């Protein structure tokens, strides 16, 4: 589905992504983990067209999509969320969702003047769809709240909600879980699995919560210092010495994970 | 065929005036850039702040001259400068207390503050006109020239003269000192850093125990110093007239922006870019070439890229070109 070939992204002298090659298989939920600053977000940004790579290629279904602008990638079915929430702060939560679908009739000036009726019908459908998504994310009561006023976690939910407004082919989730209540995160995990199964979305998920990764991801890729460190099933990764040393550690957390999982 | 004369012509009509003008713009731009850097809005009242400060300096200068105090070869106005800075600082602090503070409290968008500063500009505009009128004033005394054209010719025996004015030298020296001081202050002192922190993230600055009122006050005081100094030096070099100071605003803003808003070094660079581009592009090279080339090759025309009609346009065109390649100015300025 998505193939990243020998990707480099340098900031000045710093090599944030340093020759990473990886593949996200069609129909998979691929986990992407790695220590802070490993270059995961940067990799996402390059794939999603926000940053131009220093070198290397990105392929989608065999087609070279390197350097395409974000909106063009969106139209190809590639969606992403942001690690640091990027809501449309002065718009309501519902509007945040309704603006997402592409090619709305009402986005053409001509239609806004002369095809009011058709637009109204379309709007009703969109609003309904948005309300379904909000329902799912347990924030229906906030539909008319300004998105800027949401709590940290609610903004993350909204990020996710936007990707649910359209039929995507591949969705990149950058730490949707950070700041989201764990019970809700489980529900989100279920949703991801369902979208994956029923609608055939491919996912690539960055997350630091290993429980979450363990539950839904296969395979898992671990990055470190801009390169792919290890790749495999969850179990393989969890037991990989290098991953443990660079990322998981042997401290408190793993003990807890061990005792409660 | 005379290389030296050509050089002198070029120095006299391009290098010296452009450098001095550049320094004047830079001093003005420093004030604009500081307000933008810390308080995060484009202060349209800056030109009139300069005019106000200069007005006070002129009044004090007259007073000093009346009682017979002068400053030797240097202009008396430099003695008046501290007083003028003080009064201007008081005015700015008062303005802040009465006007700007409210908008900080309600967290108004920067553009609102820009409009507010436009209102302040009108008021200050009127204050200056009430205070000293609309006329033109010369308040320069002391030695006008470090070296004048005739003196230079006699001294060197060259056909061309070179004039350097005292005020030009003072302006350049002051500009260099001020930018260095400001840079150091913002980068290396506690207060300076707290000012940058405040501009970056007001809430977090609060959480670090930074007193916002103090930061703002210091900012205005420095602005007063910068504006008054810039205004007085400009007035010494050219003359004082309220309307011209208002007109200065555009090139000053252009300088601050092309250098990168919020960056003192950028202000300096911007000032010189604007000044040099204004002067160079419309300069007629005829006289220089007449010296350089053999007689039979001497140019008939003016050898001028564009007529001076377009000097303003040209400097803006250069500004736009710079921005196209460096979208936030040469020194990576901030955005609001």
């Amino acid at each position, binding site marked *: 589905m998505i193939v990243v070939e020998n990707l480099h992204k340098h900031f000045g002298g710093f090599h944030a992504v340093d020759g990473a090659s990886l593949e996200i298989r069609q129909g998979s939920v691929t986990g992407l983990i790695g220590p802070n600053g490993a270059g995961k977000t940067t990799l996402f940004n390059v794939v999603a067209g926000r940053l131009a790579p220093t070198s290397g290629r990105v392929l989608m279904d065999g087609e070279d999509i390197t350097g395409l602008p974000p909106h063009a990638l969106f139209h190809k079915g590639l969606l992403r969320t942001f690690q640091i929430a990027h809501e449309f702060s002065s718009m309501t939560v519902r509007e945040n969702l309704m603006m997402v679908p592409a090619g709305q009739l009402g986005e053409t000036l001509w239609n806004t003047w002369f095809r009011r009726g058709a637009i109204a019908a379309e709007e009703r459908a969109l609003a309904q769809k948005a309300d379904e998504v909000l329902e799912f994310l347990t924030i229906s009561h906030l539909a008319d709240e300004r998105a800027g006023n949401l709590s940290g976690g609610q903004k993350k939910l909204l990020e996710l909600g936007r990707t649910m407004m359209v039929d995507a082919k591949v969705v990149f989730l950058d730490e949707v879980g950070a700041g989201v209540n764990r019970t809700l995160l489980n529900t989100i995990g279920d949703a991801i699995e369902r979208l994956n199964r029923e609608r055939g979305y491919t996912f690539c998920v960055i997350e630091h919560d290993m429980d979450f990764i363990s539950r839904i991801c296969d395979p898992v890729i671990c990055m470190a210092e801009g390169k792919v460190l290890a790749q495999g099933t969850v179990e393989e990764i969890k037991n990989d010495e290098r991953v443990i040393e660079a990322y998981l550690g042997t401290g408190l957390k793993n003990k807890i994970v061990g005792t409660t999982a | 065929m005379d290389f030296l004369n050509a050089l002198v012509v070029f120095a006299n009509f391009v290098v010296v005036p452009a450098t001095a003008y550049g320094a004047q713009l830079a001093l003005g731009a420093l004030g604009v850039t500081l307000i933008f850097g810390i308080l995060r809005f484009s202060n349209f009242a800056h030109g009139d702040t300069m005019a106000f400060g200069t007005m006070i300096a002129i009044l004090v200068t007259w007073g000093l001259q009346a009682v017979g105090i002068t400053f030797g070869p240097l202009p008396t106005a430099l003695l008046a400068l501290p007083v003028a800075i003080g009064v201007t600082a008081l005015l700015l602090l008062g303005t802040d207390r009465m006007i700007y503070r409210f908008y900080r409290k309600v967290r108004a968008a920067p*553009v609102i503050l820009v*409009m507010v500063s436009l209102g302040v500009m009108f008021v200050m505009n009127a204050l200056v006109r009430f205070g000293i009128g609309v006329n033109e004033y010369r308040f320069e005394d002391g030695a006008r020239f470090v070296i004048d054209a005739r003196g230079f010719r006699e001294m060197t025996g060259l056909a061309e003269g070179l004039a350097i004015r005292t005020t030009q030298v003072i302006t350049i020296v002051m500009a260099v000192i001020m930018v260095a001081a400001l840079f150091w202050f913002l980068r290396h002192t506690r207060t300076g850093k707290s000012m940058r922190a405040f501009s970056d993230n007001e809430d977090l600055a609060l959480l670090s125990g930074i007193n916002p009122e103090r930061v703002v006050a210091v900012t205005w005081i420095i602005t007063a110093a910068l504006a008054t100094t810039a205004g007085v030096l400009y007035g010494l070099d050219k003359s004082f007239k309220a309307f011209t100071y208002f007109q200065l605003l555009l090139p000053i803003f252009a300088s601050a922006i092309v250098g990168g808003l919020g960056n003192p070094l950028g202000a300096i660079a911007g000032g010189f870019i604007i000044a040099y581009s204004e002067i160079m592009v419309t300069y007629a090279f005829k006289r220089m070439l007449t010296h350089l080339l053999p007689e039979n090759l001497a140019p008939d025309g003016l050898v001028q890229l564009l007529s001076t009609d377009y000097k303003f346009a040209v400097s803006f065109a250069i500004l736009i070109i710079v921005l196209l390649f460096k979208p936030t100015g040469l020194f990576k300025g901030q955005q609001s």
Partner: protein
Amino acid sequence: MTVNLRNVGLFALVAALFVITGMTQSWNVTLTIFNMGLISAILALGVNMQWGYAGLFNIGIMGFVAVGGLAAVLVSMPPVNDAWAAGGLQIIFGLILGAATIALAIQFWKRMAPGRARALGMLVILVGGFFLFRAVFDPAVSAVEAVNPAATGYLGGLGLPILLAWPAGGLLAAGCAWLIGKTALGLRSDYLAIATLGIAEIIISVLKNEDWLARGVKNVVGLPRPVPYEVNLQRSPEFVERVTAWGFDPVTASGITVKLAYAGLFATVLLVLVLLAELALRSPWGRMMRAIRDNEIAAAAMGKNVTKRHLQIFVIGCAVCGIAGAMMTTLDGQLTPGTYQPLRFTFLIWVMVIVGGSGNNWGAVLGGFLIWWLWVMVEPIGLWLIQSVVAGMGPGMLRTHLIESAAHMRLLTMGVILLLVLRFSPRGLIPEK
């Protein structure tokens, strides 16, 4: 469109200002202010589209207003045949040559691999083209400008009805905006602002110095009117009879009639534009624009072509300013390039938008009327203020000084009122909901 009582009240208040002016001063004064108020409202609307909808900080409005004004001349003035004969075609040819040079340079830049050869080649093309252009262009310009310089000295226009100049002004401004937008819209906030300001200054420079185009600083006066002349009305027995029958003085009535005719034309344009703007704003298009304004990065990731949309709104907003510019030149009856000053034609418009309430079309319209009224009326208000101050004062230095400075009260009053309005409604009188 929900009708809000407070907003209606505000409009009523501004209307009252105009009515009071009419009663205490004269209806002619009111209508003069009102007509410019209509034009100001259109300008504010255009700026509001760019800033309020899309967050584009354009402070080059002056330039587009001037371009609109130029259109009025180019459309309505009769062509100067002698000038065309003297070098009109050569000027056009020169301009084409200039444009071709730039196009060639751009193509060259795009086709060649980066490197010193490219830079050098481009420089050669540009410099060579420049001299070629000057060689063709300059003599033609001199020839044209020599044709009866006191009265013409320019190519003249097309001699068409001046009402056509309004859409033409919009189109011309849109064309300029498109060129500018293509190059400069990559810039953000204040950097975009100063770039547009610079472009406006360049446009004004051209208008002032290219005499062959519209006589430069010598001004083009006596543009045809879309409405009758007062003197003609006064000479028409029919008109005089009718108005005297109604109990009006013919001179006053003729002034009012003409102004009302203008008002009708302007109001029609304003209403149509407001309607279109409102429909667009309250639709997915408006929502998309707000999304882009709020967060460009996210909007791009959600599939919105930010660059294209920015260009679209920039061009439309500028076109509206161009229309207003053509209307204003029509109303003035002359094109005066020296008039175009950033304070009056850019910042004052911004004040209108911000005071009115950015992001809100009705706010912009209200701001347009209110601020223009103030801009004109602060003069008598300031005078009145100063007179009431000195009234209680004995004769003396201070008194004379104050009376002499009365003219500056205009600025002071403007400043104080602006500050007061912004103080009590910092988000504008009719804020974006």
